[in-house]
């Protein structure tokens, strides 16, 4: 059941690198959203007929929905101007999120603002803490590390330019850890959100190892409610056939084994 909640902006802060934290007073959505789900935001200041913009959720609690976003285009540029008290229509909760009930060590792999839903996930996993592998081009792209550390998570950073942590792609430290699990027959569960290359890298590893992998796919959206079929992700059905699933309702989180790249 959807809600189109008229929320108000609590704060909209620049955290450097083109990234921003947007806090919305949205008690209905805050109480319903689950990790990995997303919201469809009507950007105040854009023409009323403009399409909404989808955002994953960094956190949702105590009546507040927190969005971590990057200014990448016209919509986000205007959203960056929304001031405290501004009213924002938000549709949600949308999509199929990360499962919380698995077993095995949770290994989260994120890049850029892909860490947003991973933070919500980490918090809701509670005592089942694990490792966050966070990668990007440079230190500025590694976001909210302090928030994960505050939750008691082990954070392994990687930067392509070596400005923080391992020099190279985040798959470097990830593979080292996966080797360790393999050697000692450990069970783990991979969760990822970030650029397409990262998603495929993690998905391939989950499938190869026969471990559960939960991949948050990203698509431009139109309705975000399952009504229009614009946001397709190819998936494998049990009978082996390929089906055009909708990222907004069947995803955004898909099981690695079901994805057809």
């Amino acid at each position, binding site marked *: *059941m*959807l*809600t*189109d909640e008229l929320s108000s902006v609590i704060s909209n802060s620049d955290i450097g690198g083109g990234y921003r934290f947007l806090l919305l007073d949205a008690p209905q959505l805050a109480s319903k959203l689950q990790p990995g789900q997303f919201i469809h935001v*009507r950007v105040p200041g854009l023409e*009323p*007929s*403009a*399409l*909404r913009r989808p955002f994953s959720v960094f956190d949702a609690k105590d009546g507040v929905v927190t969005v971590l976003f990057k200014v990448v285009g016209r919509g986000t540029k205007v959203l960056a101007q929304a001031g405290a008290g501004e009213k924002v*229509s938000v*549709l949600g909760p949308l999509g199929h999120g990360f499962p919380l009930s698995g077993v095995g060590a949770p290994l989260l792999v994120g890049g850029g603002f892909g860490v947003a839903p991973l933070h919500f996930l980490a918090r809701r996993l509670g005592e089942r803490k694990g490792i966050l592998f966070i990668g990007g081009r440079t230190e500025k792209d590694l976001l909210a590390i302090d928030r994960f550390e505050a939750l008691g998570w082990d954070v392994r950073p990687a930067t392509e330019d070596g400005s923080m942590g391992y020099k190279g792609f985040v798959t470097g430290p990830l593979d080292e850890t996966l080797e360790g699990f393999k050697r000692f027959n450990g069970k783990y569960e991979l969760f990822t959100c970030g650029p397409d290359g990262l998603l495929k890298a993690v998905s391939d590893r989950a499938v190869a190892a026969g471990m559960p992998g939960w991949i948050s796919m990203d698509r*431009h959206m*139109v*309705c975000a*409610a*399952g*009504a*229009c*079929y*614009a*946001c*397709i992700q190819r998936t494998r059905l049990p009978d082996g056939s390929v089906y*055009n699933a909708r990222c907004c*309702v069947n995803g955004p989180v898909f099981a690695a084994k079901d994805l057809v790249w």
Partner: protein
Amino acid sequence: MVDLSVKLAGLDLPTPVVTASGTFGYGAEYLGALDYSKLGAVTAKGVRLDPWPGNPMPRHCEVYGGLVNAIGLQGPGVKDFVKYFLTHFRRETGGSVKMIVNIWGGSEDEYAEVASRLDGVEGVHAIELNVSCPNVKEGGHTFGQDPVVLSRLVKKVRAATKLPIIPKLAPNVPDIGVYARAVEDAGADAISLINTIPAMVIDIERRKPVLGNRTGGLSGRGIHPVAVKCVYDAHKAVKLPLLAMGGIYEPEDAIELMLAGASAVAVGTATFSDPSTAARVCDGIAAYCERHGFASVRDIVGLCS
């Protein structure tokens, strides 16, 4: 209290506002986001005989004044539509909202077959004939570009079902009155118009079309005045009731179409930016009638002189 009930294609609808095909899934997707009691009916996404995958991505591009889409009529096929989607819709709405099913095919026989499979199915109130969608190579728009072919198709579907038939006309024809008359003579019960306008977007850096299908259909704000003229022309040509759509975002947009001759209207693309649009438009039509002293919404149909 203004009487909002209208008659369309022999159906009694509680309000003159329906949702347009392709913008409202199979009816249940937007539950919670708007007041369904303000809807006269929903129109299901286009269904053909067998499951259809639709077009490659990207399937849409936002443009100034609207949206270009090339979804390509992805669908479950008529059997699974009835078994899963229609059943789910009826359960979720308690059977309280009427459904018009949009259908299409690659041949006249397929249209007739789909229509006959929907005949007598509980919860299916009318069939909208998709003869104008620009986004599929076979079927669809090719039938709607030739009035003789269109007439023959409508007759074939007429013979295959007792359900009310509502052909959906394309705007990109020299004289829409010709097509309206063709389907009226062939036995249609109402006409819906307009479908999207063939359109295209090019990525100038990659020097390639943006859409996976290369071309698509334009909907939204920009096409509204085109819709108004098409309805005005069709209303002069035929006596059939008209279901008008094309760029309705506010009550005024709908009222214009009704004054041009539409008995009912459909909200489509606007739902994406504001899911409550159809309900707001219904309220706005009522307020307009109240303000001008019209006891029934039917009183404003075709009032533009």
